[in-house]
């Protein structure tokens, strides 16, 4: 999401509204994607944390407005603000990094600055847990990438059907997420558990799970798939290059991710921007991405039965062409990059 903000700021700079400098603690200069930030605006420190901190502090003295991407970097702004009280500070609040209670000085400092929450879910949570001033916490929903490839035709891409050995009429469920053994809240386990029942009605159904996996998680999932006798039906795709994202959304009939800890769930709006209907969990920021259920189906991510019924419902009556187009348009209207840039501009200037 950071790169979307960078691109928005770059475009505002091109319009003459500001000058922008981007500083990254972890990225190396060669890792910069120049579509979002030009070379002259960017500084990458490649994990040289101390230099990053020192450099940032020095530059912040010459800065009017600073946007901080993660609460762990808050201390830098706190240091500068004690010498330069006029500096305007914005912190991005995503999800799990800021839901648990923070320590006292962080809470104290947070109350003085502006917070940009990526969802109203996150906003409500942090006002409650961190005791923030509601007037200083704004919702700035995540948006579609400025270079997102919007499909015009919703036909299933033949190249992918061939690659995965799937016939055009076979229904396909799709989840796209990082498969990390340390993150157990994405919900694909639950989907695997309800699949045997669904396959009774749709024996040639395919469930594709895309996303980079670590070996431990892959082994665990392989085992789970085997136990449920789903070797034919479930496939782990591994890492998907960004350039194939739209094609994969077009391949699928439904995108499902009954997660419990999304700050927002960008992948949902990416799926909908390709006209793909979605099922998500109702206990986290997904509610914002699905616009409180107006754009997709929200279910209790802990309720197997509810999940099963939702999947059967979409398989029984998939969206037709007009409905897919309409979904795409609604999603773009609400979450377009242009709208995001405008909101950001109004907040900052």
């Amino acid at each position, binding site marked *: 999401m950071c790169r979307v903000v960078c691109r928005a700021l770059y475009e505002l700079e091109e319009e003459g509204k500001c000058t922008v400098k981007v500083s990254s603690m972890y990225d190396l200069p060669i890792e910069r994607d120049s*579509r979002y930030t*030009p070379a002259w605006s960017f500084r990458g420190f490649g994990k040289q944390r101390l230099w990053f901190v020192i450099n940032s502090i020095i530059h912040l003295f010459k800065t009017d407005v600073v946007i901080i991407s993660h609460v762990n970097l808050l201390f830098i702004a706190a240091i500068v603000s004690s010498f330069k009280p006029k500096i305007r500070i914005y912190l991005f609040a995503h999800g799990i990094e800021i839901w648990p209670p923070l320590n006292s000085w962080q809470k104290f400092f947070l109350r003085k600055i502006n917070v940009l929450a990526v969802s109203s879910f996150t906003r409500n949570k942090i006002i409650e847990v961190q005791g923030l001033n509601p007037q200083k916490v704004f919702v700035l929903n995540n948006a579609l990438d400025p270079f997102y490839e919007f499909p015009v035709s919703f036909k299933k891409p033949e190249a992918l059907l061939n690659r995965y050995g799937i016939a055009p009429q076979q229904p396909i469920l799709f989840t796209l997420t990082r498969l990390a053994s340390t993150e157990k809240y994405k919900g694909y386990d639950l989907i695997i558990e309800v699949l045997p029942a669904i396959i009774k009605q749709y024996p040639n159904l395919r469930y594709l799970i895309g996303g980079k996996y670590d070996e431990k998680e892959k082994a665990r999932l392989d085992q789970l798939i085997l136990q449920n006798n789903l070797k034919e039906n479930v496939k782990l795709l591994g890492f998907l290059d960004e350039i194939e994202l739209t094609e994969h959304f077009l391949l699928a009939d439904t995108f499902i991710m009954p997660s419990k800890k999304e700050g927002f769930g960008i992948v949902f709006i990416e799926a909908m921007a390709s006209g793909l209907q979605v099922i998500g969990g109702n206990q986290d920021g997904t509610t914002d991405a699905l616009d409180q259920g107006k754009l997709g189906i929200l279910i209790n991510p802990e309720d197997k039965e509810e999940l099963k019924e939702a999947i059967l419902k979409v398989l029984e009556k998939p969206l037709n062409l007009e409905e897919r187009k309409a979904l795409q348009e609604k999603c773009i209207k609400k979450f377009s990059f242009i709208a995001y840039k405008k909101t950001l501009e109004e907040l900052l200037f």
Partner: protein
Amino acid sequence: MCRIAGILNVEGTISTQTLIIKKMCSVQAHGGPDDEGIYEDLKKGFSFGHRRLSILDLSAAGHQPMCNIAKSLWITFNGEIYNFQVLKKELKSYGLVFNTHTDTEVILQAYRYWGVNSFSKFKGMFAFALYDEGIKKTYLVRDANGIKPLYYSYQNNKLVFSSEVKAMLCTGFNFEVDKNWKVYFLAFGHIPEPYSTLKDVFHLEKGHYLSYNHRDGAISLHNYHHYQFEDKINNQQEACEQINQLLHQSVARHLISDAPIGVFLSGGIDSSIITLLADVYQKDRLQTLSINLQETDFAERKYQQIVAQKTEGQHNEYMVTYKDFVTHFDTIIAAMDQPSNDGVNSWFVCKSARENGLKTVLSGLGGDELFGGYPSFERMKYISAAKKLIPDGFIKMADHLNEMRYKRFYYLSYASPIGEYLFLRGFFSPGSIADLLNLSVKEVDDILQNVPVSQELNFLTGGNRASWFESNLYMQNQLLRDTDYMSMSHGLEVRVPFLDQDLMEYVYQITPAIKFDGTIPKNLLINSFKNSLPEPIWNRRKMGFSFPFQEWMRRFDKISNPAHYTNPVSQNYMKAFNRGDLHWSNAFALYHVNQEA
């Protein structure tokens, strides 16, 4: 504009070669999608083939190979003669008769009247073979700038020729691979003339013609045109006026076409000038074409818009993304008749031109070489000084340094001037090449120092010396070749108004002191168009129409994954590339060499 092929034998010695000629034409069909023609007279000892891309006189009258009415002359021709109407008028005044509106016929009639002296009268880009029954000779002729290609191989009194090396492989001759090609390629980024990837297949030198005698199969090479640097013009005002006028004339001539024609606009000085001039003649028929990228470091759109808004015609923009690069990569590589470290950009430009319905486009190619647009023009004097003052032994130690740009200093130890060029534009140093190909450094040095360069270099210094290198090596072997492969792969003709003979001959007479006055690059050219060229176009950082290959190639597993490379030395280089310690052009060169391994 087309592709040609042919086989020349001693008269009466061959029975059939129709199939071979046909194959040579089919394999080049992409460059001539509109028509195919073959003419053979095996008794006389020649077979000509032709693939046509119709630009002038789109009718069947333009079919080739073409002959005169008496059928005593036959020609297969690739290119454009821009002054054909002027020549036609003169020849008509001498009583010669014409049946078509083509420039091809003008060549035949001009030869009829002036013989081999006609070749120096043609102003344009061309490669042709002309059979003369009267003297039983065939001439292979290539234009003064070498814009059009003409490869040939001469073995056992038999000669084959073609526009592309790939056609040679259809001849049935047993061609061996030139074992030096990888050395050339890793040093230059291309195969320098006269060599090719095939042993015994050579590129006919520009401004030369080859004469083949069908009586005994003997050949001879002749130079019919040569550009000479002189010190005659030293009035800046006069020079600017003349340059303005000559480039106007050149653009006007280059716009003659019966098929849709456009201009490629990158946003740089040269293409902007061509666009503004073309606008004068085309007005609302003008079609300009620009490529845009999402990458901010490469954004030239605002400059393109500044120029486009000053014109009356239609401006077309095309976006090229990383996805396009990946999707078309294999096709682009296949389009390279000879390995090239560049040319990807040209492929996309030509593709977009074709998709826009254009059959020919004007390009700003050549402006930098003539007017000093590259850093080499400034660096030349330091190079000469370094060569004189620093002992060779010391210079050679540079190859032990780690960074490529420092290792290249080694090349300054070469006695041959080719070393200066390789210092400026080379990719791998001899030590690196030796490592990669398992050769000794001496072997690499010998191969590279044997690449022929003109004796004229003994007398050239400073800006003119740089101009020679950039025109005769870089533009000749890299830019013009890339433009040819890529345009032909889409069936598109690219024209280069800066390489107009009249303009070039004039510019070559301008004293270096005003041509390269040391203020800003191309100052003389800019001043020649002071009134029409908007300031933001010349008062900006030169970008040279490049693509974000450092990012794209690093991201593209096919190129950047060390596991794809069998050679452990290459693997290490690719690891360095992934760390950001190697330029993309070096990585791309390794990719090419690895493919052929």
